[in-house]
């Protein structure tokens, strides 16, 4: 195809308009990623600077694979994903279905969904830390009123994991609900009417009209949730600091501790590369599932 001068000019304008984005991504992502990978092969700690640090090959990686704390943090991160992603989906779907009812005044419900989304994760962490406080927390107060014993929520490993997971689900389910609500509102009314005429019950309408129509929105919500769940940091940091012991420490928290507290940049970089691999694997599994779903259509 011949390219006229107009098109050529337009092409250059296009590249010029893409240049700022490319420059920003180059400085903030591409260069640091290269640096991350290079640093992960060196032994960079307190005093030494990256340039003169000794090259150690895969030693940092070998150390990680033999480091029980790395495996513990990886296990905790995966457990957070497995627990909180499906839970946020179920809670978010519930909230979206409730929010989709015909309200006369819409703002309280909409703001109720937006507020948890808009809060910083650390705030959610602090709020729930206060809820789960042993003496003055409202959770234990409710337990007492219902005739149960108070629980050591934040100082016993299993309960601390549960408490942090609940906070994560509260914070993240509102985003899921907003995405699913948009999906629900896009379903044509006629579909429900046709199903009703055919004598479908409410449950049947949900199974055969709502869920299939909501599928793309659910996939999007799941991908976003999984990507953020891999990076879980703020809420356990604010609620437990990774404790008791290391029972709620995530990979992100361990990387932060290794580099910023222990100043072991070489090892921290290797951990970050490993974490990126985990995250890339998780996203690609999802991306493949979507493209398969698209092909099937």
């Amino acid at each position, binding site marked *: 195809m011949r390219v006229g001068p107009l098109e050529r000019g*337009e092409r250059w*304008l*296009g590249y010029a*308009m*893409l240049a*700022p*984005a490319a420059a*920003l*991504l180059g400085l*903030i*992502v*591409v260069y*640091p990623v290269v640096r*991350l990978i290079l*640093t992960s092969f060196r032994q960079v700690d307190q005093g030494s600077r990256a340039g003169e640090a000794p090259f150690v090959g895969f030693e940092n990686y070998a150390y990680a694979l033999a480091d029980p704390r790395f495996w513990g943090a990886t296990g905790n991160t995966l457990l957070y994903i497995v627990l909180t992603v499906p839970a946020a989906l179920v809670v978010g779907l519930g*909230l979206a279905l*409730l*929010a989709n*009812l015909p*309200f006369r005044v819409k*703002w309280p419900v*909409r*703001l*109720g*969904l*937006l*507020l948890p989304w*808009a*809060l*910083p*994760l*650390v*705030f959610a962490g602090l*709020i*729930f830390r*206060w809820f789960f406080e042993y*003496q*003055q927390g*409202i959770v234990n107060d409710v337990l007492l009123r219902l005739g149960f014993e108070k629980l050591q929520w934040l100082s016993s490993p299993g309960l601390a994991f549960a408490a942090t997971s609940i906070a994560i689900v*509260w914070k993240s389910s*509102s*985003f899921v609900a*907003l*995405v699913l*609500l*948009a999906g629900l509102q896009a379903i044509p009314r006629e579909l429900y009417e046709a199903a009703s005429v055919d004598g479908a019950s409410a449950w049947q309408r949900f199974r055969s009209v709502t869920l299939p129509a909501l599928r*793309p929105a659910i996939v999007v*919500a799941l991908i*976003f949730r999984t*990507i953020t769940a891999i990076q879980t*940091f*703020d809420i356990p*940091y604010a609620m437990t600091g990774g404790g008791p012991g290391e029972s709620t420490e995530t990979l992100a928290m361990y*990387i*932060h501790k290794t*580099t*910023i507290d222990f100043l072991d940049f070489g090892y921290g970089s290797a951990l*970050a*590369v490993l974490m*990126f691999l985990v995250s890339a694997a998780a996203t690609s599994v999802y991306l493949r599932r979507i493209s398969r779903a698209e092909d099937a259509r």
Partner: protein
Amino acid sequence: MIPTRRRMVWLAALIVAGNGFLPVLWILFTSLKTEGELMRQPITYWPQDPTFDNYLRAFADQPLPLFLWNSFVVATLSTLLCVTVSALAAYALTRLRVPGRRIILQAILAVAMFPLIALMVPLFQTMRGLGLLNTWLALILPYAVLSMPVCTLVLASFFQDIPADLENAAMIDGCTRLQTLWRVVVPLAGPGVFTAAILAFVNAWDEFLLALTLASRQSMRTVPVGITLYQGEFAFPWPIISAALIVAIVPVAILIAVFQERVVGGLTAGGVKG
């Protein structure tokens, strides 16, 4: 008597609104209680003897206005940068005949979605090397990248909705591409730009990990990091933390309350099309 269906709708509204508001309301109540009331067992729900002392303490114990100012400056400037860069890219990718634009868009999204935590380590080293640690710029640049995917998607979907005929008409009338962009597209894309800006602002306002690592000096801290400083070595001054939380939540709560429809529209446009 209210019919059952109406009552169900009311109950649904109560559940959804309660889920969002009650935790914050509880923090508000806590912030109004005295230290003595807080020690009482069983705990009180409604503040018995409301006091504003905790708010005074919150401002006295930590430089809360400074934290708010840092957050405001960083979030505003990173939003400006992000929206400008994303708008240029989104326009080029939706309106100009750039070869391989689909692949370029996907590359931008993939790169910009690189996990921040993996970037934290090299960014810390890079910013230290550039002498930018503990400056606003150290946060502004990464925050602009943080919101690039959502802003690019939102803006691309807005540009696509502007009829090409309008632009063509302007060019037939003798406008150049850039003049058309400035006189026709920018005014029409206003709502899209605004939506993208709110999302970018909230993302930047909420970010914690990079703020914790790249701006650790007391005078440079943003609100999410500053809030965690109220915890003492042993005791947690919950009424004071609660007061600080309320002060920090109010500005963003007002922002999203005023622009709620836009925020929802932008979130789902960026989300569903991504």
